[in-house]
């Protein structure tokens, strides 16, 4: 089944739409779904031109295409557990929150909190991601616990904060304090970032670009050759953050 949702023009286009109901499994029972525009509940039909092609008996057979002015739509794919969502443009905050399986592809940019506390599945963002990409919920000790988030462009500050499992890959640059509070899992930044991995207690972060303002509490263990995706790369290895337990690994390409 292919569900195409194309946004209709809105009187107040900057009011965010909260659409945690837009996940593949909900469309098995039709398109009688509501979302919120500000504090008003709307039926999907009020806000989208809807077209449905083909049948599906399980959520993994459902693909949702979001089209049009989608940059203010929040929480798409939240708690998603199967199927596929393709966003043809930009997507609002909290896309793929807590998702456990399935796939989300964003062809434009993603706003903040992409894949917050994700458990599994795969998110690919072809543009840039905002702040707190692959981060945790306020006050929670563990952030992303599984799955894979890949951003082809840049990511904002606090990328992969509290990462506790899974894999985060930023092809461009990351902002300030990438991998802060990192606990487990792997963060790979192909571009540059500043002050990575503050207070990390475990896990691994690899930076292939430049590290600005490396924190003073990382201890260099020297240069080693490391296997990375089948290639050998030369990296300077640091243990840190010794302001905390100092059990994490930060690597910098040399």
């Amino acid at each position, binding site marked *: 089944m292919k569900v195409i949702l194309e946004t209709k023009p809105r009187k107040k286009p900057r009011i965010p739409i909260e659409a945690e109901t837009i996940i593949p499994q909900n469309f098995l029972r039709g398109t009688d779904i509501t979302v919120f525009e500000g504090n008003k509940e709307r039926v999907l039909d009020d806000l989208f031109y809807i077209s449905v092609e083909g049948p599906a008996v399980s959520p993994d057979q459902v693909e949702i295409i979001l089209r049009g002015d989608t940059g203010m739509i929040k929480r798409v794919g939240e708690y998603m557990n199967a199927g596929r969502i393709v966003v043809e443009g930009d997507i609002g905050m909290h896309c793929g929150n807590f998702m456990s399986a399935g796939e989300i592809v964003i062809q434009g940019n993603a706003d903040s909190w992409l894949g917050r506390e994700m458990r599994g599945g795969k998110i690919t963002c072809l543009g840039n991601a905002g702040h707190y990409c692959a981060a945790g919920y*306020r*006050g929670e*000790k563990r952030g992303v616990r599984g799955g894979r988030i890949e951003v082809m462009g840049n990511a904002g500050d606090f990328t992969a904060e509290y990462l506790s499992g899974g894999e985060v890959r930023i092809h461009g640059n990351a902002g300030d304090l990438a991998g802060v509070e990192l606990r487990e899992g792997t963060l790979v930044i192909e571009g540059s970032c500043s002050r990575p991995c503050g207070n990390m207690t475990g896990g691994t972060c690899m930076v292939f670009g430049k590290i600005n303002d490396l924190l003073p509490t990382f201890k260099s263990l020297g240069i080693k050759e490391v296997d990375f995706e089948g290639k050998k790369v030369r990296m300077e290895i640091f243990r840190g953050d010794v302001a905390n337990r100092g059990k994490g690994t930060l690597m910098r390409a040399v």
Partner: protein
Amino acid sequence: MSELLIRNACVIDPLNGINGEIMDISIRDGRIVEEVSGNAQVIDAAGCLTLPGGVDSHTHVCGTKVNFGRYMSPEDMRAGRTARNGCMHVTSGYSVPTTFGNSYRYSNMGYTTLLEGAMAPLEARHTHEEFTATPHQDMMANTLFDGNWAIMEAVRDKDVRRTAAVVAWYLKAARGFAIKLTNPGGTEAWGWGEDVSGIHDTVPNFEVTPAEIIGTMIRANEVLRLPHSVHLHCNNLGVPGNYQTTLDTIGLVPDLNKTRQSLYLTHVQFHSYGGTTWRDIDSKSEEICKAVNNTPQVTIDMGQIMFGRTTTMTADGPMEFKLYMLHRNKWSNHDVELETGSGIIPVYYFRKSMVNCVMWAIGLELALLTKNPWQCLLSTDNPNGAPFVKYPEIIALLMSKKLRDQECALLEPRTEHHVPLFAIDRELDWNEIAIMTRSAQAKALGIRDIGKGHLAPGAEADVAIYPLKTSEIDPSTQYQQVIAGFSRTKFTIKRGRVVSRNGEVIVDGANSTIWVKPKVPEEYNLSNDPDFVRKFQEYYTVRMSNYPVQDVYLPRGVCIETEADL
């Protein structure tokens, strides 16, 4: 005039010796009466279990530390949220719900009266503000004196009368209900990052011991003729081997009051540990219960823990820091000048942890090994052992050996060798549960005379009707029904008005705050005492005239005035 008639109620009212009689209850203008007119609104209880409204004699629901528990825990707030609905306000939180969340959830369980376990007098105004936002229960506040400088000076001078005068001044200023001692002396030591480790240790700089503080306060309490006894959180909470401290403390207690205990020991589960480390910790509930059974002048509450996540919060600052060193999650601490301390950390009790399993067993053992149910009250030290919404599960565990056996099978396997629980067959009956959840609590708090905890004519019309037919349910096997029944009343009636029905709160509440004002002769009024006034103005950061809680904070205050024997 408003009248209400409850028909066909299966009443258990232990304070009046009623055990399972089918009868009618007449209510007029918020009180139980002999009979009502034919115009009364009628509720058909249809033979369901009908009890006096529940009384929780030790819970943390309002005030500085509770609110800080919410403030620092967005992850807990997220765990229990409801939208505004009818007259119900928004609620958030699981282990530390918002005030309305606490109030509605307690109300749905049939609770109508709560004692906030710890209020620092300096921050009393905050507690009272939250009381007015907890609309469905009448509220009281234990007032903290454990590290009070004026108290310790009077105790050092062995001056019971002055001690009483200090208590009287603070209770009135704080609009408090009773004397609370939390790790007496320990909270002052914690001002320097230290603690006391037994009742005969000396408190730094004050030359008093916890034993002297406890002993003098018990006497001062009776001098003031306060409704409740001293309410004690013993020293050494949560330390392996601490049962000895608890036994020593019980050994101190004189029998000074005919109508109730002379000392209330709270959350005794946390104070009943044998062994020397977390590895060899074991249950000393048998020793503790033996002492309780032999010392009728003490009453205890369980402080049961239940597995899962919760938040611990107590005035016992040093204990919370020790706990933080074990859990390493997050830690808040808030010491209060000249008075007390407090700490908060989130915890998770695991079945995989032998220590947690021993703790779980001890709470139940205390209830099952204390012979007289009037001496051991049901509590979790909410939310320290578990959020109060777990009470129905605890009731079921106490009523069913079968359920206990099932749960025991899931415990960490070594537990069996560290606790006596596995060999205890006792199952409590409905009457004993009624005693432990309201009647004994009302008696222990000394609020029976203002109409709490019973249903005789003249009593406050606080009534809980549960969807449980005691004649048709065998609690030892049908424990699921017991849990469901105690989780949600058919009707909760507060002061003659149905406030909650089948789990839905249907009116805006209007609670009362009960406080105690001991009347002391003018020469014992410390507002006129130059030494007290001078120290107050020099060492507090709030002026004496701005300190007392104004009447406006108790819009429906109920003052119990006592005549001090000074």
